[in-house]
């Protein structure tokens, strides 16, 4: 006898935010279910991975993390381009850490120049991030917003202390804000209300609940995110229907466990760092994260695959891929990308390989890339790696194909003719369909708090007395059951 499955009753939906225009459009949010519960509703957009770029050379990073970016760490522009072009970042997270008054204390003007240069160099959305120093951030992010006027950038962190100044910037320069509150549902809501009162539409706000690292308080973030999302989609609390932003990379990589050398007890340092980052991300994704800020390309690849698998942003099967033959084909290893084995590392761009099997085609990877079991012809080795599988991107291979007539015929030119056969992963389709339909940056529906509230006194009243949350009868960080 089939069991009867109780469906969760959902009452609300996270707002969809769309950035960019034309073919470069990217949307996030829109969930009307708990994270990845796709059996009972829709999660229209895959959560996005923002690759972090710093505005100074981070000598303090562990070796395993520096290695994939070794050639660009000194140059934020080159770094951002590599993150976008080689590691297929959905977004770039530019952390202006060098402006920290307790650190290098660089000027707002310097920061604005950096941000402008990065913004000009990339086509994916840009998040510009301050140092969580309320005053300095106002100065820096204001300069950035003015320098980048005309581009819809995302800025943060916006906190209670500087929300007025940064809210004004958002209105003046059409920015999206990331509102940061200290792991508390009521404070998150209050900040959103305060921003709304300034006139910032709720569709221009992303919630940063404050991210704790694995082993360093991630459980607090996890639960507060679950609770906020619950309020947003089961209680239809409009003030909390914003996507989540989780700034996890620094929280992972600053810990001593991520920096520790390889050893018997702690295992391989590189793999440990990758897994700590990937598992932190997977945990937060399961609590509802819409943007995860990450660093290591291999961790990113793991998380892409996780999102594709769990969210049903399915990759095409190997049979659908035009390259799924076992003929000798020219394969380009993208330097530094997935490194599953020795063969992948030893391969150079343009090396001659045999694709034994296409193993996966994660939705997050750009069309043309796939994870495959490859056999090197030059080295007689076998292994798994990211290969450039087909068409357009092939033109970018820096080194010419080396040898063998057979491979030449099936090399880029030959296969480019098959381009129309390429079926993009499901996750790509909505993006293409969305082009033209979505209205970048403009709220699709009028938020209704203004309709209900006529004057400032009422507004303040609303801010102070609107529904508040507590976890349960007996405990929780929030026991305030009465209005503030």
């Amino acid at each position, binding site marked *: 006898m*089939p*069991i009867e*499955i109780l469906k969760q009753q959902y009452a609300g939906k996270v707002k969809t935010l769309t950035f960019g225009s034309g073919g470069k459009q990217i949307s996030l949010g829109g969930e009307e279910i708990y994270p990845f519960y796709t*059996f009972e509703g829709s999660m229209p957009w895959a959560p996005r991975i923002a690759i972090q770029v710093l505005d100074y050379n981070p000598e303090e990073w562990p070796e395993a993390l520096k290695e994939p970016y070794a050639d660009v760490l000194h140059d934020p522009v080159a770094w951002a381009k590599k993150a976008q072009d080689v590691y297929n970042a959905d977004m770039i997270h530019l952390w202006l850490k060098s402006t920290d008054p307790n650190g290098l204390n660089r000027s707002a003007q310097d920061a604005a120049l950096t941000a402008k240069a990065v913004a000009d160099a990339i086509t994916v959305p840009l998040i510009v991030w301050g140092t969580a120093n309320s005053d300095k951030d106002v100065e820096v992010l204001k300069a950035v917003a003015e320098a980048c006027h005309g581009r819809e950038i995302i800025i943060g962190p916006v906190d209670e202390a500087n929300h007025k100044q940064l809210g004004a910037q958002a209105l003046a320069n059409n920015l999206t804000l990331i509102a940061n509150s200290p792991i508390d549902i009521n404070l998150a809501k209050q900040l959103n209300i305060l921003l709304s009162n300034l006139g910032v539409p709720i569709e221009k706000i992303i919630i940063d609940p404050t991210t704790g690292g694995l082993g360093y*308080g991630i459980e607090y973030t996890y639960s507060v995110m679950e609770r906020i999302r619950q309020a947003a989609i089961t209680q239809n609390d409009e003030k909390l229907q914003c996507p989540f932003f989780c700034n996890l990379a620094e929280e992972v990589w600053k810990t001593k466990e991520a920096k520790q050398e390889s050893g018997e*007890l702690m295992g391989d340092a590189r793999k440990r760092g990758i897994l700590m980052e990937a*598992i932190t991300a997977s945990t937060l994704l399961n609590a509802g994260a819409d943007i995860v800020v990450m660093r290591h390309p291999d961790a990113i690849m793991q998380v892409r695959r996780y999102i594709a698998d769990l969210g049903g942003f399915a990759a095409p099967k190997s049979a659908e891929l035009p390259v799924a033959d076992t003929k000798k084909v020219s394969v380009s290893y993208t330097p530094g990308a997935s490194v599953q084995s020795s063969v992948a590392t030893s391969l150079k761009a343009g090396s001659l390989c045999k694709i034994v099997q296409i193993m996966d085609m994660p939705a997050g990877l750009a069309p043309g890339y796939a994870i495959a079991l490859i056999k090197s012809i030059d080295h007689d080795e076998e292994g798994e790696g990211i290969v450039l599988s087909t068409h357009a991107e092939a033109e970018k291979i820096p080194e010419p194909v080396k040898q063998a007539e057979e491979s030449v015929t099936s090399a880029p030119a030959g296969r480019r003719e098959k381009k129309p056969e390429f079926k993009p992963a499901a996750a790509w389709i909505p993006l293409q369909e969305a082009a033209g339909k979505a209205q970048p940056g403009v709220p699709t529906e009028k938020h209704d708090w203004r309709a209900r509230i006529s004057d400032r006194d009422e507004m303040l009243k609303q801010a102070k007395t609107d529904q508040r949350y507590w*976890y349960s009868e007996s405990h*929780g960080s929030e026991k305030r059951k009465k209005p503030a």
Partner: protein
Amino acid sequence: MALTGMDIFKLLPKTNCQECGVATCLAFAMKLAAGQAELDACPHLSAETREKLEEASAPPVRQVIIGTGEHALKVGGETVLFRHEKTFVNNPGIGLFINDAMSDQEISQKLEAFKKLAYERVGLILKADIIAVKSQTGDAQKFTTLIKKVIDAGIVTLALMAENPDVLAAGAQAAAAFRPLLHAATIENFDSVVKIATDNKCPLVVKGTSLDEVAELAGKLAALKFKDIILDCGSESFVKSFQDNVIARRCAVVQKLRTLGYPTIVFPCLMTDDPLYEAVIASAFITKYAGIIILSEVQGHNLFPLALQRMNIYTDPQRPMATTEGIYEVNNPDENSPVVITSNFSLTYFIVSSEIESSRVPTWLLIKDAEGLSVLTGWAAGKFSADSIAPFIKKSSIEEKIKHRKLIIPGAVASISGELDEALEGWEIQIGPREASALTPYLKNWKAA
């Protein structure tokens, strides 16, 4: 489910004999309802009443114990969907998969790693819990030899897996003393495998190709008064298995569906060939409801992050994790190193100690017991106040370790510096930064004299 104190009271003897240690039967009933007392404390319950009460107070996901004594693995016992509602009760077991087709060397390496890897954190030991031994060859002899090898290595928390009931029976007998989990009863072999489990008093996995089938088998088994059941939805697909776990938990907790009210077992080791991705898959099952998670390998780089994640997710949100009070030496301090004090809330401790560690400044870190509260909360509750810090410093023997008498207190409690100055004779109180992230420059500029 969830009887009130009054419901329970009606079933008690109402003699107020106080043998349970509580003044009245009503008070005892209230304590039972709040989960603060054990039913066993009352010596006067009839068997019938006891069963009734046990049934009524059993958690929606039944608790199942695998193994015996100190090596027993407790799974299930869960009562909620979200950890903020109450707490997740029993850590899911992390298991290691081996089979009898692997080479001796491979087996030895795996067992070695399984035994060796353990991490101490806030007084807890994080480690893998169970070994899943599978008969790959179908040869009973090989299967039992392997099981004996595992037991000889001192590992006695086991899951035994065999397709052939005869082979499974041989395995169950070989490990009978240790109450292994048997895998699995299916539609085809139901009667024979249930008999093996009953004869050997072992917990049993029911495996089906869908949740419906699993629920039906579990119901059939429960009807035989068999209680120690684990569910296997039989899927090698990550997403299917994830959804099954979510649905099973929801049916059990919200709908009180008894037939799905058992812990589950999942096999990330069968879901991918990439060992790193396998760990990422396992992490999804730690957040979403698996009871036992079987991996193909256990090494420092995958076990440590997973065990850490599991500890975090299964931390009781009602009770802050605490670190032991005392003096912690960071970066080999000497008699001229700074002395920093903070509360014993584990998160505070981790963040402060890790910040000091990365500053590379040799420092004495004093952890004061504030009942697991953070600095500000502890101060507000009087657990991190001048009159409690002063005696702690005096009895901590830190004075024997240093030449100077300077104490750095958290910036958040700057207001206690005057009071502390008076209470701690001979000491100079210095106010440190509010945030741990500012400790590095602070400590680098600090001078003993």
